[in-house]
């Protein structure tokens, strides 16, 4: 097979990622039929995202094509192929929030952190996500940071929330 830039890159990245944890997960599921989804979920749990070398590892050990795994990963919104921030800011863009100006909240996050939907800050602290509805329409507009919910939020309050988490680091 010809040597392509990708392959070189693949091996280069591989050295940085510690695959022991992924191997441990795979040990549990080896030879089990239809184990792909739980394995990927466990890997995401462990690493916070699905690192590329783990895809090839899973492909080799579960005897599934890497292309197929990539298909699964891109099909489900729950999987992430890039590292994600420590804090996930979910900006609700549902009908109620939209009416109450959720767009401006999203803009504020973008202004302060420089990240739009599905983007992560370089220091891996924040990831922004625009979501459809988080079921707290009574408190619109609303954002979530990891599991904490902040209702009836304004631009100022958004700033405060961001600053608060920045301070914790």
């Amino acid at each position: 097979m010809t040597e392509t830039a990708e392959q070189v890159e693949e091996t280069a990245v591989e050295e940085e990622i510690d695959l022991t944890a992924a191997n441990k997960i795979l040990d549990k599921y080896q030879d089990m039929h239809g184990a792909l989804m739980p394995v990927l979920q466990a890997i995401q749990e462990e690493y916070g995202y699905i690192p590329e070398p783990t895809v090839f590892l899973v492909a080799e050990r579960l005897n599934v094509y890497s292309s197929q795994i990539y298909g699964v990963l891109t099909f489900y919104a729950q999987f992430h192929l890039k590292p994600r921030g420590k804090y996930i800011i979910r900006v609700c863009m549902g009908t109620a929030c939209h009416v109450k100006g959720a767009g401006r909240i999203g803009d504020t996050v973008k202004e302060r952190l420089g990240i739009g939907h599905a983007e992560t800050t370089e220091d891996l602290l924040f990831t922004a996500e625009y979501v459809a509805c988080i079921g707290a329409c009574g408190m619109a507009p609303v954002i979530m940071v990891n599991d904490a919910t902040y209702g009836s939020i304004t631009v100022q309050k958004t700033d405060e929330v961001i600053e608060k988490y920045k301070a914790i680091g």
Partner: protein
Amino acid sequence: MVNLTIDGKQITVSKKATIYEAAKEAGVHIPVLCYAKKLLPYGACRICLVEVEQMKGRLIPSCTTPVTEGMVVNSISDEIRKVRKTVLEFLLVNHVVECPVCDKGGECDLQDLTYEYEVVTNRFEGEKFDLPTDEINPLIERNMNRCVLCGKCVRVCDEIVGYGSYSFINRGFETKIATAFDRGLNCEFCGQCVSMCPVGAILPRPFKFKARPWQLKEVDSVCGYCGNGCTVTFGTKDNEVQTIRFNDKNGVNDGNLCIRGRFGISYVNSDKRLTRPLVRRNGHLTETSWDDAIQVAVAGLKAAGDKLGVISGARLTNEELFLVKQLAKTLGTENLDHSGGECYKGVTEGLKETLGIQASTGTFPQVEHCDAILSIRSDFYETHPVFGMVVNQAVRNNEAKLTVIADKRGKFTKLPNARTLLHKPGLELNILNAICSVLLDEGLAKTDGIEGLNELKDALKDYSADAVAAATGVGADAIKQAARELAQADNAAILLAYGLPYTAYSKELGTAAANLALLTGIAGRPGSGLYLCGEKANSQGAVDLSILPGEKGLGAQQMLAAAGTGELKALYLIGEDPLTSYPDRALVEKALEASFLVVQDLFLSPTAQKADVVFPATSFAEKDGTFTNAERRIQRLRVGITPPGEARTDFAILQQLIQEFGGQAPATSAEAFAALAAETPGYEMVSLEMLGPQGYVWGGDILQPESKKLLPVAGAVAVDGDYQLLVGSSLYHSGTVSTGAKGPMAVVSEPYIELGREDAAALKLVDGDLLKLKAAAGEIQAKVKVDRRLPKGVLFTPYHFSQLELNRIYRGQAAIAVEPVKQ
């Protein structure tokens, strides 16, 4: 069987058939995009919708719906027309309409349907796709803007090839076909996806913008590379083979081809081809006329008297091989041989002494229905990829149990549930013996009417599964399991490829495989088979026609040795390049130096450069005749193009030589076939007219063994040394000819030394580093390729490249002890 009515036509079909298949049988045309004969039903495109009386109220996809008794089907109605037209409109929302520059134009299913259903306007609007095209690799071009998401490429790569390069990624409107991480294609490059694509989304890049489909003249012939004998259909224009056309109607290969068959044809049009005869004058090869060259050759050969030898390649047609034999007879010599002279001994001696035959016992298609398959060496896929695809289908569709006796991992070992008996290099024989011993110990062996049972039992005492497991590094349980599966399977197959890089233990391996075939009852049982497959297109033909040394004659290796010592005065080499591909370079060099050498070839090979006379011959695309493939199928070659310059067919050259020496040669290749059929065992009843689109299998689907004799074979001893080099065939190449073809060269352009990750780490080597290998007989040097398939301490290098001079250290050993030195 099931009875149903389609468009008023009564028809009876198998109950496994779908409505589409039944309609096809009834001669009713139903349009399809995602259906392919050899793939599992999918139902992605919704073009094939039909009405079924019993299922009123909705339209039924005919390609996925099985037939039921009394079904009444309407294949066309106003409503169906409307729905199909709407489906096409949906497809054309995003599909870029660039038919004038799309190479599929003229044979595009979507184009044809759009025309048929008069989709002139579109009620729907949407954005046209604007995706980047994959133009990184030189063989397969992907333009996903033209994709209709039928999934045929995804399925063929999985179901037939077993590589799994493609998958659907993303979802909804953004769904597209991509590789892992949406990168450029980096695969086997067999081009099966190219042949399957109903639109212009996946196209052969070498054919890009070359011609329109309707301008091509189609000529059915047989691929000239390996012994698989795939039928190919040339698309010719301007006296060049522009491309290989998809054709699933002829031959054994169902339209499947590998990279060599599909993209390896370009050597035929190479400008490096020899166009005029050459004669050595004042130490230099100079161009001359045919008459002159023939005279010089005849004078030289005459001067040698009967002290000469003829070595032929195994890519000559049967007719030409017949003339080679005639010529040897006319010259009065029994020194006649082909392709290395050692590698085929498994067939000519191993099988001959045990089964009394000299060919595979079954045909390829029946392997698809096998329950257990044993592949000796993982390289079988590399030497015979399309047969390998049949094995893949057996594993996938029939859940066949595949066991691979391998010194390295490969495509076969990766197939679902494949059992790999990964052994130390060179110990295949021991494992075969162990399997035989398990069969005898556990009373699974079928021993009725078999001779030599007691002798074998005695000889196998040292080869109990446990003893062999300890010696080879393979698990004893795995050996036992493999033995049980083979014995219990209704249909089973044993596969072994032979060829120039596999000369070690060739006879012994053939014998051991035959022993196993006898004990399991595979030999001669309908549905089962022992397959000893030759490396080259007509290896089987050469064995059938007995292009072998006579009783007092010398074989290829002995001829070269004798020529080196001056015992033989002249050598006539036809389509062979011993300097590159034969073991033991020193022996070959000495022989070529010392003798009067006539070489007949397509290119000025390293061997031809040493010749006294060089005849320019023609490729398989320029001649007619027959090849016999590894399953004994005789198939016809047809002339696709005319030869370049003054090059002549081997047939014409041999004919003239025979006449010069006062012999009688058949005038045409048809006459030659009639003559050879009359005197070749198995061919007696065959005439050219009998060779239909599927060819003709001499001896029938199952060749019955003439004797059933077990012969004990001593096992091998492992090679010492920390590092051992294996020699073999690379998937992308076949013999040395493919190094003149652009397609294979685009993927593997130079020799390499492959090693596993552990060794690479230990030796601090990365891809592309230069590595020198020191062996007892000399040293070689090439770039490193790091892979996952080699066990620790095992290295691999392919034998196709002349610049590697591999035979400096390769002398026909099973494995070569080497010392790697990083450069």
